[in-house]
């Protein structure tokens, strides 16, 4: 999966209409809340078999950090 495809997935699971770029700070994305994190956890598990603990998401700063959770599966 490339980064643009992942950003589209992320926008859908967040239900965000606005743009989303890799360098955006997560604190500037109002839709990045517990519902979005739950959706993201389910997506990473469903697509890549990755179990990312919820606590990891609290230390992320940018959208790119979220993609990096997939450990190279998103380029």
């Amino acid at each position, binding site marked *: 999966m490339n980064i643009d495809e992942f950003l589209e997935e992320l926008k859908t699971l967040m*239900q965000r*209409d606005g743009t989303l770029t890799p360098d955006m700070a997560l604190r500037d994305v109002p*839709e990045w*809340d517990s519902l979005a994190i*739950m*959706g993201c956890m*389910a997506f990473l598990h469903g697509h890549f078999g990755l179990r990312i603990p919820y606590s990891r998401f609290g230390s992320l700063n940018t959208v790119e950090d979220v993609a990096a959770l997939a450990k190279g599966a998103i380029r």
Partner: protein
Amino acid sequence: MARAAFTDVRIAGIAAVVPKEEVRLAEEVARLGGDLRRVERLARIAGIDRRRVAPPGVTPADLCRQAARRLMGILDVPGDAIDALLFVGQHPDHILPATACILQDALGLSRDCAALDVNQGCSGYVYGLWLAFSLAACSAARRVLLLVGDGMTGLLDPENRVVAPVFGDCGTATLVERAQGAPAAWFDLGTDGSGAKDLMIAAGGARIPPPSTPEAYAAHCQRVFDPAGVPWRPNRLHMDAGAVFAFTMDTVPARIKALLASAGMTPADVHHLVLHQANRQIMANIAREAGFPESRTPMETFSRYGNQGAASIPCALCDALGEELARGPRTLLLSGYGVGLSWASAILTMEGARCAPVVDFDPETPIVAPEEELARWRARIAGAPPETRSDDTSLRGMPRDGMPSPDAGTAVKACGRAAGPIPTDDEGGMQ
């Protein structure tokens, strides 16, 4: 390991009662931040739409009482046919006694009926079934009335946008009875108390008791804001949504698969997966990971009534599957998960059970608001109309403030020394 299989026990019927007061998410926008897009998003992702909220003075016990009366009427079961009453929930009428004791009297059940409360939340219905099936299977109680009700809306801060738009109130009644030839039922239960703080009302119990001065009470009630700006109160529900979700996804699908394996079944052998109606996102993810299509996993009850805590599974059975279950035998997998942290799943085949349509609560007598209830209780303590029966001699010699009179005090001490039966007043010479 809490894994069990029972035979010769059946669910005879289920009834559910909800408050008639409906709150729609769209109407709560202002209180929850005033962002309409946010509301639409909640509706799309989590399936949140509307919920039922009991007015002050209507308790889970009230809803359960009406559900029980309805069920006993439908099944034509008299009060003296109930051997045990279990009340499961998180919002009892009082600190003590057990709500089940009050309901025994309110329902006109026999004095030979055992009655107890079980403090469990979203896994509570399956826990209650497990207890009821156990009692009936060994004939410790041949007919068990399982009353499962929750009133989470009274236990949360209405301005907390994480929990306020999610929860609804409901009371249910399920009759479990011994029935020769009833098909097998399998149960799998578990606990992880290391996550107790993920869903907790911290203040008000023995650890942080209710203070006895209004000034000290402030710290229990006043809001504390978390780093995201969400207000919480120590004496109201606190939830770490992400941690609960992580626990759910790490535990529940695997336990469902393990239960299927122990019953020698696959998802294809089960007509419906009936999950605790937590929210759409959680239910959809569990169903997918456990191998069930969404078409066989009812989720509409959440959108219609909200997350009803312990009562959500029986309400979903009545709401989404009542007609389906009347058509013939159906094998169901029920699974509840949440506060504790705790989980419980069951596979059972329902045959000939009556799952009545969900009905609105009908107050048979004027609702007594909590303030009025408090005033009545204060008046009672102060000596207003005695409620003890005229033939009740147990308070003889006791003045109304509850302290023994000097004479009675002597009698109590004398009784303490007596080795034989406690003497009665008629026997005189107790000293």
